[in-house]
């Protein structure tokens, strides 16, 4: 297993098939989301209560407007009109206060829920196993943790703001209208009901379309990231045009899915507005007739018109809410994989692991990823304090096997034991504290070099820091860096050479003073002399520790206490260099190949 370095197709990956726990896998759906809303009940109730007041007050305003018109028509006293208008303004004041409250509470819910969801997902991401990160490209994860999460607050910001008042406005409006003219009210009610049910049915078809748009957007970012990561290769071969053409195809496909979605989404959104406007037409016609027949006052006529305007606005909002609901469903479907992967976490009865000695046992370990068995029935015992080398062709499972120790991945079958404790039965924190890792591809964070080293163990003294820097031989390079140990490294900082990065990674591992040190081809970019110095320094520091060294060249590890030879996911041989040579098997053949290759050069050189 090689650490991932670059992006990959955004196609929705399958949930991990490996090491799944037996609990039903959670889905990110509306019910799941509702659980987060319940955490903010106060604000939810606040938004509904203010919504109630706001909705009723808003619905009463047209009533007073109608009253004014009737009084004017009847030629009433100015005092009467002023009183009506004062009541109207009172209603206005209540709606403004309610409006304020609704927005306030809905804001709290929207941003708190998305805050909680974001935190929850990030916690999951922190605990996912390595297999997850091999499947998902960074660009794709970013799009899920950004654009898809945004849909959640967009939905709640509008629905908790408008839903409460919308419901009460509709109820109040219909009660008041019903008192004025029952037949007309019934007409309005039926028309609106039909349009709403139509909209609901149409809306269901929108969700998968929106998901497709988001997926294509993810594919676009993945394409960009891929091209930029490989830019030097593209330039080397002058393939800018080819890349641009490939991108063009994706780009056009995005436009196609987007327009396809919009052309179905827009009419659904426009529909309620259109229906309520048409209803206004009905009211003008039939209300006019009723007014002509004097069964409806002009004030009532005006009320109907205003109410329809009000209802039309309310229904438009409901339409938007509904669209957002459908889009949020699409977005949630894209969040589901972030809930369903295998998580590496403490067992409920996890035991502390103090002062580990570093005795390691693998028992019948089998590892599977995406249905393919990568390690078969591994049995291995390593006494504490030994230096053990793992050799074998690339892809034989050396890194994968070592990764099981720190539980970056759990095996499907079998056990991994440290000092006789199953690694799954000890506290993850203690387990990882006892292991220091220098991985194959070095990743440094965009902070100072010192901060990167201290990442190994934050509370080390200046002396310990200096020692780690000295042993890993970074001190030679410090003068070349603009600010010494305070130079920012990583993506945003100074670019270090491969060898420099590896040495920082060694210092980072060293300060942990671990029981087990793992060097996964950790000196590949460090020149031979320096690496010899580093190894000598390490040996003196880690005399009593267990060291696991993955190596590609056999000669560099032949002095190891134990050499484990792997091939195609199995341990094929193990023993000391001499024993393995004597056996004349796989290892001996590897050594022979290496020797043949080098012997000639040396012969010539002498």
């Amino acid at each position: 297993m090689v650490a991932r370095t670059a992006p990959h197709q955004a196609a929705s990956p399958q949930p991990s098939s490996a090491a799944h726990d037996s609990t039903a896998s959670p889905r990110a759906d509306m019910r799941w989301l509702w659980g987060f809303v319940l955490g903010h009940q106060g604000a939810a109730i606040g938004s509904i209560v203010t919504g109630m007041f706001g909705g009723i007050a808003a619905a009463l305003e047209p009533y007073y407007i109608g009253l004014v018109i009737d009084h004017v028509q009847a030629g009433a006293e100015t005092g009467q009109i002023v009183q009506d208008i004062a009541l109207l303004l009172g209603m206005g004041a209540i709606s403004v206060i309610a409006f304020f409250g609704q927005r306030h509470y809905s804001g709290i819910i929207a941003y708190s829920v998305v805050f909680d969801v974001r935190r929850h997902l990030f916690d999951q991401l922190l605990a996912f196993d390595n297999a997850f990160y091999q499947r998902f490209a960074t660009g794709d994860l970013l799009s899920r943790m950004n654009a898809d999460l945004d849909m959640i607050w967009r939905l709640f910001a509008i629905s908790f703001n408008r839903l409460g008042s919308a419901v009460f406005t509709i109820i109040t409006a219909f009660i008041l209208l019903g008192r004025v003219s029952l037949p007309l009210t019934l007409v309005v009610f039926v028309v609106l009901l039909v349009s709403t049910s139509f909209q609901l049915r149409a809306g269901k078809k929108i969700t998968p379309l929106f998901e497709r748009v988001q997926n294509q957007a993810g594919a676009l970012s993945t394409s960009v990231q891929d091209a930029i990561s490989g830019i030097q290769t593209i330039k080397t071969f002058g393939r800018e045009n080819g890349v641009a053409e490939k991108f063009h195809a994706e780009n056009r496909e995005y436009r196609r899915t987007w327009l396809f979605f919009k052309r179905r989404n827009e009419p659904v959104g426009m529909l309620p507005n259109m229906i309520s406007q048409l209803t206004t037409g009905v009211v003008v016609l039939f209300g006019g007739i009723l007014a002509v027949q004097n069964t409806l006052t002009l004030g009532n006529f005006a009320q109907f018109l205003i109410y329809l305007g009000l209802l039309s606005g309310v229904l438009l909002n409901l339409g938007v809410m509904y669209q957002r609901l459908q889009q949020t469903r699409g977005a949630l479907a894209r969040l589901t994989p972030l809930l369903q992967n295998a998580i590496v976490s403490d067992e409920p009865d996890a035991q502390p692991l103090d002062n580990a000695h570093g005795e390691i046992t693998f028992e019948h370990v089998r590892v599977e990823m995406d249905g393919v068995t990568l390690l078969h029935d591994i049995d291995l015992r390593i006494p504490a304090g030994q230096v053990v080398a793992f050799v074998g062709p690339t892809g034989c499972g050396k890194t994968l096997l070592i990764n099981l120790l720190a539980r970056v991945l759990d095996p499907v079958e079998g056990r991994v034991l440290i000092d006789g404790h199953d690694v799954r039965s000890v506290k993850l924190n203690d387990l990882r504290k006892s292991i220091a890792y220098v991985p194959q591809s070095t990743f440094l964070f965009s902070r100072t070099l010192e901060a990167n080293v201290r990442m190994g163990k934050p509370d080390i003294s200046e002396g310990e820091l200096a020692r780690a820097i000295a042993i890993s031989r970074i001190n030679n390079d410090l003068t070349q860096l603009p600010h010494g140990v305070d130079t920012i490294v990583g993506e945003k900082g100074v670019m270090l050479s491969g060898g420099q990065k590896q040495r920082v990674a060694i210092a980072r591992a060293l300060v942990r003073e671990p029981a087990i040190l793992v060097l996964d081809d950790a000196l590949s970019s460090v020149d031979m002399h320096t690496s010899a110095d580093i190894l000598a320094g390490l040996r003196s520091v880690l005399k009593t520790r267990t060291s696991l060294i993955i190596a590609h060249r056999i000669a560099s590890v032949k002095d190891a206490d134990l050499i484990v030879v792997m091939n195609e996911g199995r341990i094929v041989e193990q023993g000391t260099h001499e024993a393995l040579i004597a056996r004349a098997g796989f290892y001996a053949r590897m050594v022979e190949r290496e020797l043949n290759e080098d012997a000639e050069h040396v012969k010539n050189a002498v």
Partner: protein
Amino acid sequence: MSKTQSNALPQIADGGEKVSDRYLVGMLGRFLAPYWFQLVVVFALLLSVSGLTLLLPYLIQRAVDGPITSGDLDGLIPYGVVYFGIIVLIFIVRFGHTYLLQTVGQSALVDLRQTLFEHILKQDMRFFNTTPVGQIVSRMSNDIEALTELVSTSIVVLISNMLTLVGIIVVMLALNWRLGVLGLAVMPIMIVATVFFRKQIRNTSNKYHRIVADYLAFINEQFSGMLIVQLFNRQPVSRDEFDDINHQLRDVHTELRDSYTHYASILQIMTSVGLAVVLYGGGQGVLAGWATLGMLIAFIEYTRRSFEPILMLSEQFAQLQTALSAGERIARMLHVQPEIQDAVNPVTLDDKPHDFAFDQVTFGYDADRDVLHDVSLHVPAGQRVAIVGATGAGKTSLAGLLARFYDVNEGRVLIDGVDVRDLRLHDLRHAVTVVPQNPYCFDGTIADNLRLFDPSITDAQMIAAARTASAAPFIERLPGAYEYRLLPGGANLSQGQRQLLALARALVHSPNSILVLDEATSNIDTETEALIQQGLAQMLRNRTSLIIAHRLSTIREADRILVMSRGKVVEEGKHDQLMRRDGLYARLYQRQFADMTVEDDSKENNYLATAMD
């Protein structure tokens, strides 16, 4: 490698002066221009929607003051029918302009996205060394999305509401100027509030975008370094840092919403007050006889409708702000020009093995620190040259200059006697192929990676190249062979296999090029290495090549060895000559050899590129 020095550089893509709003509008205009006809139609449709909408209250006024007041039922029917007809028409027109504008907007944005992408591809390596990948991805996705929102929705809302607002004001004043003045009484206050809050919302919105950018950068780094985070028990720290930025996100979000809430509340109050004024004044007017009841009802409608555009416009503030700052970032990126420009009067090269030369070349990534000093060398066609020297001696810089990823500060780099700056970049890169130590694998299959998106390469050519480069044996063992799909970063290939793939790739694309090879140091198992040696032997036959050498075999088999130290070529010649000379090379070689005999009877250790500094 000499990259060490390369980057105290400023962030080219995000620095620079602020781009003016006018430049932005110009940029959008440029991309919308091809669709001017459709846009004129959209505008006409918007105009007619506004006009039709304004007709509605007027019709009601006429109906109330005419047939309804006079009790003429037959007279009422035409009004009702026309009213109905107008509503249907409005929807047809509205659907039409939405459809048209969305199509136009998407087409324009596809063009913009494509232009931006191609513009980025054209940038030089200095740009890519100083611009994080995440930043580019964010320009290409989030920022363009924000513009999509602007072009497909916000513009319609803006224009149609402006038109409606102006229309209402005109109609109100024309119908009854006294009622009109009453209806517009609160408008100035609304405008003042709008100006005030627009500024506040703009500032908060900018802050919001900065925090979102921080958030994206943070999670990007976390995801990339998750293995380290987990192995070093950094989850609590990551969680704390995440919480901090998550809090900031929530707070700035709330702040933005609060500004808008305050503003919208003021608008709401003004709406109520405005209606009250019309009702009171209008009521007096009806009683005094300068207004009719129908007029009053119509004016209530007009007044209500006049507030709507302002509310709608205000709702677009944040959206507009988002789009503007996104547009600004895009404009700024489009503004960056590569320092490496294509030759104005290009010279063409013959398609044959090339020779190359460095003529007194001085070069540094930073102005104040040279990586190469006055380097001169000539490599005749077909010669194989090995460069040895310690890390930081400037070996990789030679490759970068030859392929013109960077330009020299002084001196010239020549291919077949032509300055590389006088060649078309495309031709130059056809003539020079750099195979890095850790080649990149693109998202796709083995075949995609060999073809590099060039469909004109046939299967036969591809397979022949893979055979010659000795990549075929491992490829053909993979399930699906050439259709085998690579994991991100080529994680399901070993580094050695990736190198073999890169050699085959070089062979397919540039059969006659100068090959610049950064030899892999380790990471490669013995078997793959044997294959690489075999592939290389095939490839290097009759080729001009420059090899940054780590292995004895490469060094010894080279026609010439260049020894570099601190940015200079200090020695050159064949192995035997250099040994006789008893200089730096000989010292290095002896030291290396001494290591081998003392500590290593298996005669491993083929690194010469060692302790020079």
